[in-house]
């Protein structure tokens, strides 16, 4: 067997092995090198997997050569190869960025542990995305969550500790709800393999345990993906975590949770008539709209930019869920594309905010006054990210919102088109808050002169900002993959 056929396992195993290595080697620069190699290798493998899947269809890998319904199967299709590229791509950019960024924010003796937790978190997120086994999802979810709690607790401010504690409580409750749901599904179908479960559930569809499983999984995963009103842990966690951690988690953690929801809804429950038995579509539509409006409105009144964009994340999750609620190919395409585009946009914004925190000593609106003069490029980058959040043509955010509008029109829901545009205006208001402080106000006398941004931070950040514009202009990769993935998810029914 050649190495290429083991790529699905290597995708997870390489970062997993890197984690203990960083602990054993201890030296900060060696640990950094190991983590960097692991994350770049993960990106290379993700790209190779995407190419393989695009060429020859779904890959199935039997761990330990135990065949699929009995053994653990890693299953790579169009959807999760796309997610793998997002997660490993963001990690490959945030890791070099983090070296200079944590210098100022984390005590030096903890740096090697930072890299350990970072690659462990990466392992967990990649594992969730690649595995085709329901219980495996839970295990990887906990691997990524536990390391994420530690990463958040590394923040300078003591409030980071309490934010991590709250996230731990909410996250554990969410994960436990997910296990309860998986347990009920296992009791009813006798299998843990997701594809197999999707086939067998047809015989027990509509029974009460299956409906209960649907409810438990929905609530559990919604806690993880911060669906309004289960988003309470998110703003504090993103605000007080070290900048590199905020960038990584904001771009990947909630997105992978969305993937889990997509997988369960359409690959497992999709075949059965469960959607018809509960008002799932209406419920998701309502929560999505509530999130889009409430979270955007709260964002307008924030004084710290990290917190402002955290609330914006909750609102953007609303758009993703809105696309899912349409239950159509175009709606799902919009969801999956927005998942990717928003990941890129938020990753870029939080990386830029990390540069601001380093240069100006903080990210409150008072500190960024006159940022346009002091850090012109960084400031311009945040504006591009903001335009993408609003959905201005030429940015990634426009593409996904455009598809969302098309999906709403396809359903004949004119009022939804109006709501999407209206909530984008709210986004324009909170982005304006930054523009006003950065460009229309003079730099404060009492803020220090700006330290130059290290190139290790500025280059990865610049790549991601360029990616925002690139994915706004060339949609062949994003839309191409997402529409294939959406068609495959709904394929069982149409």
């Amino acid at each position, binding site marked *: 067997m050649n190495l290429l056929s083991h790529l699905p396992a290597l995708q997870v195993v390489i970062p997993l092995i890197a984690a203990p290595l960083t602990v054993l080697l201890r030296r900060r620069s060696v640990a950094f090198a190991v983590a960097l190699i692991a994350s770049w290798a993960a990106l290379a493998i993700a790209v190779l997997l995407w190419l393989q899947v695009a060429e020859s269809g779904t890959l199935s890998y039997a761990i330990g050569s135990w065949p699929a319904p009995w053994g653990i199967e890693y299953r790579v299709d169009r959807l999760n190869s796309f997610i793998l590229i997002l997660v490993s791509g963001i990690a490959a950019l945030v890791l070099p960025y983090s070296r200079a960024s944590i210098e100022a924010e984390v005590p030096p003796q903890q740096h090697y542990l930072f890299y350990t937790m970072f690659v462990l978190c990466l392992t967990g997120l990649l594992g969730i995305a690649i595995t085709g086994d329901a*219980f495996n999802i*839970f*295990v990887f979810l*906990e691997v990524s969550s*536990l390391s994420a*709690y*530690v990463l958040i*607790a590394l923040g300078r401010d*003591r*409030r980071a*500790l*309490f934010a*991590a*504690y709250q996230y*731990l*409580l909410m996250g*554990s*409750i969410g994960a*436990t709800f997910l*296990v*309860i749901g998986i*347990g*009920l599904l*296992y*009791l009813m179908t006798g299998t*843990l393999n997701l594809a197999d479960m999707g086939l067998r559930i047809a015989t027990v569809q509509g029974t009460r345990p299956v409906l209960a499983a649907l409810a438990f999984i929905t609530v559990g995963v919604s806690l993880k993906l911060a669906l309004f009103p289960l988003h309470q842990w998110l703003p504090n966690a993103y605000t007080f975590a070290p900048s590199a951690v905020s960038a990584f988690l904001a771009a990947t953690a909630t997105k992978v949770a969305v993937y889990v929801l997509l997988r369960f809804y359409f690959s497992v429950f999709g075949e059965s008539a469960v959607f018809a038995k509960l008002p799932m579509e209406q419920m998701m539509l309502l929560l999505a709209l509530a999130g889009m409006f409430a979270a955007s409105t709260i964002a307008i009144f924030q*004084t*710290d930019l990290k917190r402002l964009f955290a609330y914006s994340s909750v609102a953007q999750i609303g758009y993703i869920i809105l696309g899912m609620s349409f239950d159509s190919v175009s709606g799902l395409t919009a969801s999956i594309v927005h998942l990717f585009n928003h990941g890129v946009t938020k990753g870029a914004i939080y990386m830029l905010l990390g540069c601001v925190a380093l240069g100006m*000593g*903080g990210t*409150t609106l*008072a*500190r960024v006054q006159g940022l346009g003069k002091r850090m012109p490029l960084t400031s311009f980058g945040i504006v591009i990210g903001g335009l993408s959040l609003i959905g201005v043509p030429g940015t990634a955010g426009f593409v996904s919102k455009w598809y969302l509008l098309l999906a709403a029109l396809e359903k004949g829901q004119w009022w939804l088109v109006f709501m999407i545009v209206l909530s984008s205006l709210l986004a324009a208001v909170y982005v304006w808050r930054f523009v006003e402080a950065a460009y229309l106000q003079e730099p*404060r006398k*009492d*803020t220090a002169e700006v330290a130059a941004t290290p190139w290790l931070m500025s280059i990865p950040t610049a790549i991601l900002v360029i990616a925002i514009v690139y994915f706004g202009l060339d949609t062949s990769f994003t839309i191409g993959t997402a529409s294939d993935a959406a068609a495959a998810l709904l394929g069982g029914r149409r």
Partner: protein
Amino acid sequence: MTGATTSMTLAGHFTYFITVFLMVAGLFIVISRSNLIKKLVGLGIFQTSVYLLYVAPAKLIGGTAPILSDAFTVYSNPLPHVLILTAIVVGVATLALGLALVVRIREAYESIEEDEILQLDAKPERDGLEP
């Protein structure tokens, strides 16, 4: 439904009642207590209920481990037991990390009561600049 069958289903569902009781009790403690350690105790009880949910249906009375032999015809399902072994490890790790965070919170805030900590955090943000 006759009295006999009702009591049969009640007895048959005994483990489910215990499971649901533990689940709700644990979740209630997490929500209602303000002491951070008691919250973690609640979380532990909540997670324990899931162990029961998995393991109880997998055990058959008189069933043995699935070893092929002419002497036995009834087997218990080993898979849920193994899954729960994993879940227990995850639960222990979560509890350990939670307690470690509480220790750090106690050092930073001199308190492990949620309402006191929220009060301490509610003071206006200073960030070193005049408004």
